[in-house]
């Protein structure tokens, strides 16, 4: 019985994985082995267990993946229940990741889902490096930008600035806003990363504060007045927490009072939440469609059963249905996914000499450079205060300042280019230190 059931469950999947085809990817090897390997070896991380995340977990489990993990820092709220279909009334207050993992495991036999109830920043980088593919079901630019930086951080390039395939961490990113959504495939080093195309996200609408204070005309103006101005006036020092229902209720009541004063209609609690948290009401079917597209792309990346989406799909279900795929191009100088300029250095070179070398490097010709390595500002040419604080580093070998790591990424800012084209710029450098006959392990031991 069990066998019959499992074979009927993978029937549709088998059509993709067991048979050859003419639209398949270059490395595709159909067969039962492929199906088993997908189950055994592929580990997928779903980031976010909200509207999109619930759909993604279900879709990926039903697509035959068995090793899933999910990370989300939120707890379930009553207002989630209309679309986050894995959650029930009695789950309110429980961590989303834990309940979502449990519900999908109850319904789909054979799948194992490990929940992580924490912030994405709380996990070590090693945690993210364990996964074959990272699938994003998020609603914030910040979180996407963070995961993108982590995933692109694993990417390494060879001496010819070609990305090393085995260091590539694919991402599939879904997003929805009301009736609109997108699904995209990010193969760092091959297709544009999130940062290459950050302009795709429209900037948040911000009203002038004086309009809010003096001449409100819309319900949103009244809400932002209560949120940005009135809150501080009344709660001196206590900061507003958008996830605290009492705070939200207070803003709503203040906004309603103000709306009445100016004769403005339309202030409701849900609009207050929407304006303050900058969210557009989610539509369950949009989430389902976008998630399906993302799950399919994940399956294609993992199995090679078809060429992947290239590389950005937009969906709009507002009037009829419009969907389109756009092939965006990489920003070759992207600070996050680009190769950067390669430099081979002696371990003895001081920071000062390194900065001097930037001036002569044919691809840089950079003068007055400031140098930063993984969040440590090694040298700042300006302002004077920081220059003074970092000046003592100039005499220290760069190798030591970089914790004796044999290779690393360095970012430099300065004035670069030739003649009239000289302008200030920020560049990524890939540095490697010459071994000098000493092995890496010796050097690590000497630290």
């Amino acid at each position: 019985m069990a066998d019959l059931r499992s074979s009927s469950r993978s029937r549709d999947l088998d059509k993709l994985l067991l048979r050859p085809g003419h639209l398949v990817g270059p490395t595709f090897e159909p067969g039962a082995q492929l199906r088993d390997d997908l189950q055994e070896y592929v580990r997928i991380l779903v980031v976010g267990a909200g509207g999109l995340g619930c759909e993604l977990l279900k879709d990926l489990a039903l697509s035959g993946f068995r090793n899933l993990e999910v990370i989300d820092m939120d707890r379930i709220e009553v207002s989630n229940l209309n679309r986050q279909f894995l959650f029930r009334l009695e789950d309110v207050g429980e961590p989303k990741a834990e309940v979502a993992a449990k519900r999908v495991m109850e319904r789909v036999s054979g799948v194992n889902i490990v929940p992580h109830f924490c912030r994405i920043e709380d996990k070590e980088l090693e945690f993210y490096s364990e996964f074959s593919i990272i699938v994003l079901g998020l609603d914030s630019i910040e979180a996407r930008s963070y995961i993108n930086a982590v995933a692109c951080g694993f990417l390494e390039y060879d001496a010819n600035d070609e990305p090393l395939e085995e260091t590539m961490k694919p991402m599939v990113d879904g997003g929805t806003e009301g009736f609109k959504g997108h699904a995209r495939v990010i193969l760092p080093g091959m297709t544009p990363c999130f940062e290459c195309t950050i302009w795709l996200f429209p900037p948040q609408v911000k009203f002038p504060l004086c309009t809010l204070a003096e001449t409100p005309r819309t319900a949103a103006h009244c809400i932002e007045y209560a949120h940005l101005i009135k809150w501080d006036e009344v709660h001196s020092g206590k900061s507003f927490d958008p996830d605290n229902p009492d705070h939200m209720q207070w803003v709503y009541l203040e906004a309603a009072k103000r709306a009445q004063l100016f004769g403005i209609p339309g202030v409701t609690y849900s609009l207050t939440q929407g304006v303050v948290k900058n969210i557009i009401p989610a539509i369950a079917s949009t989430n389902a469609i976008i998630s399906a597209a993302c799950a399919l792309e994940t399956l294609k990346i993992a199995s090679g059963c078809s060429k992947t989406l290239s590389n950005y799909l937009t969906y709009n279900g507002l009037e009829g249905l419009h969907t389109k795929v756009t092939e965006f191009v990489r920003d070759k100088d992207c600070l996050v996914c680009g190769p950067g300029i390669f430099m081979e250095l002696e371990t003895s070179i001081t920071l000062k000499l390194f900065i001097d070398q930037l001036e002569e490097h044919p691809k840089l010709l950079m003068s007055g450079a400031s140098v930063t390595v993984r969040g440590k500002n090694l040298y700042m040419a300006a302002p004077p205060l920081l220059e003074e604080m970092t000046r003592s580093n100039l005499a220290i070998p760069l190798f030591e300042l970089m914790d004796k790591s044999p290779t690393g990424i360095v970012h430099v800012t300065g004035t670069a280019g030739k003649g009239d084209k000289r302008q200030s710029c920020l560049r990524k450098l890939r540095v490697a230190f010459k071994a000098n006959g000493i092995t890496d392990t010796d050097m690590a031991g000497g630290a």
Partner: protein
Amino acid sequence: MIRLFKVKEKQKEEAGNANGRGPLKKQSAGELRLHKDISELNLPKSCTISFPNGKDDLMNFEVSIKPDEGYYMGGKFLFTFNVSATYPHEAPKVKCKTKVYHPNIDLEGNICLNILREDWKPVLNINTIVYGLYHLLTEPNHEDPLNQEAAAVLRDNPKAFKSNVRTAIGGGRVGDTYFARCI
């Protein structure tokens, strides 16, 4: 693609902790861009910048402005900047920490400056904002009021406004509000 994953599994075992790199910190694109802005700062003498959390946290800093002309000449005004990881997609959050009698800055330190909100563009930078703030102090305007009373006085009676500002920055009461000395 699946062969890739098997290869990876093996490689990871071999690599293990061989390249023991120190604790990695992810530097956001916003941090990098801010690093550029800060290292290119070109502030007028009347402005000084400080970093309360040290040289490695550029995302939170303070700028003090001491206008050398206009109504607020001689006063010293402290502004806090809070920059997010999505900078410059998003403008920094700036507040005035010095309580000031000013038509475009309210008593909580909120500032009505277009480039901080509706007119922010990623091509702008920290230098632009500091100059904007400096301009706000030398040329207060009554057309974008956050402090209504101050704006009305500036519009109707600039002399009285001037005298109110002197009272406030010297440490004193304007109407019902007490301002601490900031000269």
